[in-house]
């Protein structure tokens, strides 16, 4: 764990800044980087023109049930031990003055995505409807975008060996349906829609409530908005460690899981 943590610190403070510095000059190029699918005006690369999709997370309604975490795994066939979205469950305060706090997290589909300019291939880009996507046929798996994301919401897909992340379930949204996590949210905390549409639920919520975004100071302009996000929760979200990982390591679970996967693959 010590090792992992220090690596993480290095990545956060060291490598990611280096990467930024290195690529800063080519930022403008990165935005206009060519991508065959986008150039061919393929709808799944362009998105629904005229719309701007956002998500509002009404934390008053989140019961920390992990239904979203679950559905995302199956809807997107996310590889074992990897997640596009999840809900951190934490405690604020000490007994007896203690409160529960839940923070559903996913790709923020930022207006100024830190992941896009650092991509050397044009694999990751923002569609016209605001959804930030990864083209896995163009991605080299260099990992710059993963390091650049201030929210840790990208991962290296073990199967495709490319960057991967939440794309608001574009496969459903592009068909007129909704992201899996929104469909299954028990408390109704996750609300998704087109902010350009004044009749949309997201527009109404954003007009009626003051909202917060994560790490506003990063200047990334996230398009995932939180209602009633306590500042203490925001501070916690990136530093929280789960005992699960320690227990998994100690019990030898990771090894077993990898073995199971290999066996499954070799059995076709």
């Amino acid at each position, binding site marked *: 764990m010590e090792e*992992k943590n220090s690596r993480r610190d290095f990545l956060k403070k060291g490598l990611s800044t280096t990467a930024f510095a290195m690529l800063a000059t080519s930022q403008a190029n990165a935005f206009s980087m060519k991508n065959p699918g986008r150039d061919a005006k393929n709808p799944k690369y362009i998105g629904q023109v005229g719309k701007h999709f956002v998500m509002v997370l009404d934390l*008053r309604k989140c019961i920390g049930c992990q239904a979203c975490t679950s*559905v995302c795994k*199956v809807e997107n*066939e996310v590889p074992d031990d990897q997640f596009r979205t999840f809900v951190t469950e934490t405690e604020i305060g000490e*007994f007896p003055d203690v409160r529960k706090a839940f923070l559903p997290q996913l790709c923020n589909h930022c207006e100024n995505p830190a992941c896009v300019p650092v991509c050397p291939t044009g694999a990751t880009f923002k569609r016209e409807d605001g959804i930030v996507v990864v083209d896995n046929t163009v991605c080299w798996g260099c990992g710059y975008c993963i*390091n650049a994301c201030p929210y840790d919401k990208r991962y290296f897909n073990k199967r495709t060996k490319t960057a991967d992340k939440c794309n608001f379930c574009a496969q459903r949204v592009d068909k007129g*349906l909704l992201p899996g996590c929104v469909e299954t949210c028990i408390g109704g905390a996750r609300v998704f829609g087109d902010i350009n549409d004044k009749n949309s639920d997201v527009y109404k919520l954003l007009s009626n409530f003051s909202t917060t975004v994560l790490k506003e100071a990063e200047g990334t302009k996230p398009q995932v908005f939180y209602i009633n996000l306590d500042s203490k929760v925001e501070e916690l979200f990136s530093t929280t460690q789960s005992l699960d990982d*320690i227990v998994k390591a100690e019990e030898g*679970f990771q090894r077993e899981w990898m073995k199971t996967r290999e066996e499954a693959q070799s059995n076709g």
Partner: protein
Amino acid sequence: MQSSRRKFLLGAGAAAAVASVAGYKETLGAVVKQSNKGELAQDSIYFNSPNAEFSFLNDKFVPDENFKVCATTCIGCTTQCGVRVKIDKKTDKVLRVLGNPYNLLSTDPWLPYNTSIKESYKLLSQNGKFETYRSNVCARGNVIFDKADAENRVLKPLKRVGKRGENRWKEIDIDQLIDEIVEGGNLFGEGNVKGLKDVRDTKTPINPKEPIFGPKSNGLSLIATTHEGRFKTVVHRFLKSFGTSNFVGHTSICGLSMRAGEAAYLGNFKKYPHLKPDFENTEYLLSIGTPPGQAGNPFKRQGKLLARARSEKNIDYTIVSPMQGNSDTIAVGGRSHWIPIIPGTDLAFVMGVLRVIINNKLYNEKYLSIPSVKGMKALKDASWTNSTHLIIQDKEGFGKILKDGKTPLVLDAVDNTLKSSNDVIQAVLDFKGSVEYKGKTYSVQTAFHELSTNVNELTLEDYSRECGVSVEKMQEVAKEFTSHGRKASVDCHGGTMHSTGFYTTYAVMMLGAMVGNLNYKGGMSPGGGAYKDFVGKRYNLFGYKGKSKVKHTRIDKTRMAYEKTNEFKEKKAKGINPYPAKDTWYPFTNALESEIITNSAKGYPYKLDVLLTFNSNFMYGTAGGENHIKELISDPKKSIPLFIAVDPFINESSKYADYIIPDSVLYETWGVVHAWAGFQTKVNTLRFPVVKPRQATFKNGEPIEMISFIIALGKKLGLPGFGEKAIKGQDGKWYPFNKPEDFYLRAFENIAMDAKPVPDASDEDIKLSGIEEYVPSLKKICGDNWRKTAYVMARGGRYQDIEHSYQGEFLSHRYKKPIQIYNETVAMSKNSMTGKRRSGTVKYYKQRVVGGETFEKLYPKEQFPLVAFAYKSNVLATPNTSSHIMKEIKYTTYVDINPKTAEKFGLKNGDYVKVSSHDGNTEGYLRFRHGVHPDTIGVEQGDGRRAEGAVDIEINGKVTKGKISRRTGVYYNKIGLKDPSRKIALVTDFVCGSNVRHAIPVKIEKA
């Protein structure tokens, strides 16, 4: 373990918080290699996500023909929500689960029932009314369908080789298996085993001294799981045909103390009704140990309604619990309150609150003074109580309610004279004295007076000392609870599974009587009921010639008083004290799963010959099972000579079976279920196989599962009610029972035809709900009604529309009987071990064993300084351990402890610890949690498995290795206690006999 973990001071686990960190590591590795190309994703942008099942672009609806979407029921936990599943037609695999928007357990408000299937999909699309009709699935429901293809699933009938419990098996032909269990013989080389054919003797008494115990056919007992839609079928069509009175569900290890306590409050030990708050409209919810969103049933619906009530409506809620559950969030500020409490002392807290309410007259006096239906109607109220009824205090008739025939007598508040309660609108509430009736003087007191006397037995300070909640807090709660008129509600559930759970529940409900919340909007609801299913308009599916109607003494000694036995009568006749009996009896308990193996071992009331289990896991689920039942079940001579399990997986119980019959799983099964509580309108949710069952079939092609098995077995035994002319039509005709569909399609037809029959399903409905393959059977079985039956199947059930929920401020579906401030049945019954009467109303008791000794004395605090409790998981549920993905969402469970307590014992976050009670111990990793009472340790239920893929299984000589991911976590029930006041028994609720899993005194140390 690495020292670094000391740094992590954190309560609850975040499933995936560091998953991305692992991702970095692999990224770097891949970058270095560069050449290491991964597998090609299915789509450049959508990766490996399956295509959407429909397209709604530009309002044009285009279904994807590769999939079918069927409405069915999730049985991943006991809530049993209506869902729709997306199935890949080519692979016959479930890809995704969606909520069923017609079903109120998944949706609120739910769709009007006459909405077409196409419209229902459209309403849930981007341009529909998604935010109104959002229909969802919980964390487990979303993923557990993968267990159908788990590597440890039982696909063929198995017979054990080697000794019981060794988990070594051989596959065996189903016909041969049935032959062996019917004929018996030297089946295992361990001596002769009596077959079912010989057990089925419906004439010879099983115990000649006690004819009331019934015939030898009672030697067969069934232990099932929850009512999942097939249990009643097995009971009525097989067991009652066989001639046994022995069948139990899982209630005694689930929430029996709650159910029994509420049955006492509601005066109905036959149907065992229970109440739930009207979560959405209540203004103040006081929940004892059942935080909505964490626990309780219906899980999803409660969570959803609470989330809405606290953000859009007007709820304030207080959770009294050893652990702060998921009903709390800092995002709702001051609306949510937590009162930490020591497990098993909730009765003291509630008695304290009742004392404040009664002594300060905070109760609704007008309501409590209503003595009859007439009074209720005159005052336009929605319910009434027996608080003004008079209880005889004379030696003769002590404890009985003073009645004229069947009608209770009360003192009219107008003129203080004794009258029939039917003639009185307001009666005297608090009275003790004598009355004259028909020339005889009776010493009496009102039920309310008895209640008042009992709550005043202890002072507020006493109650406070017992439970650790301050007097001020109790006063505050009492005041708050009584400040919302009828819109104050109470709740409790599995948290009452401790030795005084019965009276705890009774007391919790009693709070409701103080404000008169029953049948009120925002108050308490008995549920909305259901349409008639098994016994309905078209068929009586439970009726057939030759069905046994006699009720005999059950193996669990429930539904009968000791005083009816010859044992009692003979002792009495001889002039010796009939108490104690040889063991406990439970006159008003319905069933006790946790007493069966032990009773058979004792041979009291009798010994069983055959145990049949149906998806049951009494071993893992019973506190103390693994330590104390195991030795009885592992030796065929001790308790169960022949053990047959119907189970899709080999669990901690079925691993001791002699034979295992495979069973269908989840969406492969048939069933009809109702919602339990917490809803206001009629609901029937149903299931029919929407994917092909994976397991072996009978020669006729029917998959081997519970229902097809009882049909085959029934026919082999020549039992009545199987084959041709076995199902009774209400038209006087008889219909065949050869396949499960013969039964279930007719149950669906009953539902369709009940009340005002449903409309006909359109061809489009049938196509879009994926039930085309059922059309031939529907036409054959349901005849003219086939499209109506299809209408119900297309919607996964039948549901009354939401506008039928309320009538003004009343609920539409109201509980009709009076609330029992005093329950005569309970009062007139005696503890068969002590001969003592039970209290007819709530009364304070410390945690105790049946003989009366308190935990305090038996398990002194010096030796066992902490109190253990288990809590419900919002992700894990025992029958789903074989789901690979579920374990990704929640990998493991911990021993949760308050950091301050841990410090006292020199323990650190992440330490591997041993938790020991007087009679058992368990191990696990310690997790710091500030939201846990410092005098306790808590464990999330559902992990630490010792079967179901956690251990090696050998079938036909081939070994499937057990997995760490199934074994990980804390096996809580290993700390269960033995009752030292009984022979071979676990500690139970001393009134109703439920298995005690909470409030267990323990010590903790480094393992």
